[in-house]
């Protein structure tokens, strides 16, 4: 998909939903204030998806896929919610969550790289396994110790979530774009055999990518729990689809070998604006449509995924920067 299409699509979407929700502005200052608050909310809300989408872009670049991201984030959130609240939370739950998340990511990596299980099957299995562990940890309970942890809620606000996303996308993405690591991931996604012949440690690179997804999953769990305040075993079901749709819409090829982090950023925002817009336009939908507008989101997600892949295939060429 052409890169300029994504910001254009985002702007059109925002204009459409703003007009449907009946929002009107009497001055430029009013509009500015509205959109400042709108984008700040949007960023906080979509921070977990943005962080996971960064990792998923790398995974798709290697011709892999990770269906377990939703269950992984849910499990990390469930485990850290089981620690007692208070200042000690930072020294107990947070390192434990980080270790667990990296272990979960590395498990996926070992299955795919060392045991040679196809990524979709490996992560499908771990998706069930991790979700099962969520129920083992939580049962039917819903826990919310996060609000009693000093400073924790900052991670769900613009300052904390914004900094995390900025560090990951600007610093991490900037380094990644110039790195040899990126070229190696693209090469192994494009042609694994050629990558092996070129002396790239294919197994190690795959293990690194999936472990990185685990690390990003940990950050996503922090943002999610800080914003949401509570967690249960069935939390974040279906998150993986949202992440994959956003990444594909951003121009990353599911067959591997091409991907763009800036495209992913816009892909996530497009999905988030759609989600928020459909919720905001619910009242309009109730009077103008014979069905609930929220149900349309499922249809749109599916249609956007097919459209994104079809456009990427039609483009034929990598939509990111050419491999150096």
């Amino acid at each position, binding site marked *: 998909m052409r890169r300029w299409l994504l910001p254009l699509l985002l702007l059109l979407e925002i204009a459409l939903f703003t007009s449907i929700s009946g929002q009107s502005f009497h001055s430029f200052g009013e509009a500015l204030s509205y959109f400042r608050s709108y984008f700040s909310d949007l960023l906080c809300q979509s921070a977990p998806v943005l962080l996971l989408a960064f990792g998923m872009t790398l995974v798709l670049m290697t011709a892999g*896929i990770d269906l377990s991201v939703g269950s992984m984030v849910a499990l990390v959130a469930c485990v850290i919610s089981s620690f007692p609240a208070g200042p000690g939370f930072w020294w107990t739950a947070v390192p434990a969550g980080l270790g667990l998340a990296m272990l979960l990511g590395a498990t996926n990596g070992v*299955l795919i790289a*060392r*045991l*040679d*299980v*196809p990524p*979709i*099957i*490996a992560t*499908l*299995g*771990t*998706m*069930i*396994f*991790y*979700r*099962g*562990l969520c*129920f*083992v940890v939580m*049962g039917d309970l819903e826990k919310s110790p996060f609000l009693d942890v000093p400073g924790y809620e900052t991670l769900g606000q613009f300052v904390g979530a914004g900094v995390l996303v900025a560090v990951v996308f600007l610093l991490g993405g900037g380094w990644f774009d110039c790195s040899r690591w990126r070229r190696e991931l693209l090469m192994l996604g494009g042609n*694994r*055999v050629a990558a*092996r*012949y070129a002396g790239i440690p294919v197994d190690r690179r795959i293990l690194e990518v999936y472990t990185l997804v685990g690390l990003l999953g940990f950050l996503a769990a922090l943002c999610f729990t800080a914003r949401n305040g509570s967690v249960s075993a069935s939390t974040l*079901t*279906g998150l993986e*689809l949202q992440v*994959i*749709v956003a990444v*594909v819409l951003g121009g990353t090829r*599911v*067959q591997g070998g091409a991907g763009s982090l800036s495209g992913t950023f816009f892909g996530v925002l497009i999905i988030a604006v759609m989600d928020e817009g459909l919720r905001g336009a619910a009242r309009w939908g109730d009077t103008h449509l*014979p*069905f*609930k507008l929220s*149900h*349309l*989101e*499922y*249809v*749109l*997600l*599916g*249609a956007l*995924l*097919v459209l994104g*892949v*079809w456009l990427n*295939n039609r483009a034929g060429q990598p939509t990111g920067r050419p491999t150096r």
Partner: protein
Amino acid sequence: MTHGRLSPFLRQRLLFLLAGNVALLAAIAVTVKQGGSFGEVLARCGPNVAPVVLAGLSLTGIICAGAIDLSIASIIVVAGTVFGILVHRQWPPLPCFAACALTAWGLSAWNGFLVRRLNVPAIIITLAGLALYRGVALILADVAIPNFGGSLDVPQEAYHAPGKQLAGWILLAALVGALVWEWFARTPRRWLALGSSEEACRLAGLDPRAILQSAFNVGGFFLGLAALVYVTQIQFIEPARMALGFELQVIGAVILGGTNIFGGEGSYAGTALGALFLYFTSQWMTYAGISPYFQEAITGAIIIAVIGLDCALHRRRKLLEELA
């Protein structure tokens, strides 16, 4: 898919599953508690396992042809919603059953058509279908039933015959038919050929697109039966929550049954044994008093362990083939 001799791998897997099922039955017989009987366990087995086995038969052919259908649960939801709407409008049972099965068949065939026409990987089309069809089901229910409350009630016993009284017989007939057809017919061998090498298939004068479509068409027939049995077993049809995670159970059974996720190898018998293995495992866990919260995690662990072990055993050969 087993015309002629079974491959050593498939033979090994079938024997493993056969022995595993016998061992699990013995374990159930030992742990079955007072008030229940082993005969009842066996009698309940047919109806309980029928939807997974029938959907597994559908998926086996599709995977053997090198594709996959992740949207089977959502297709069942659409079929169930159509069934529920017709029951709500007081149609007689037979047309309702026919509409349910035909809807599932039609959507499966539609998936095949989309994969064929758009030239988009089946995993993406059907991943999109997973969300899209559930949205379609919800919209259908909203439009067809005024003030739809999220659930369609099917109280009359006459509408439950295929799922309750006839499920075992439908399963037996479909399984025997599938095994005989698999052994003698030419189409399943063409699926294997396509799954093994599309290029070789084309050079042999076969039309890969037509073969792929036939896999989705035949799969649709079995999926229609699965939808019929699944939908008529339940009292309340809830499009938003029904059959969540069903596709994972089915894919787990198919993969456990020895079907190669990349296509080119598989058998209906393996799928049936794989589904039985997972069912008996869950039954044994129930009788052994294992908490239901642990059951999902254990099921996921079993799938990962069996597939991981299998892939690890074949890794050396695959690497040599890859570098040859």
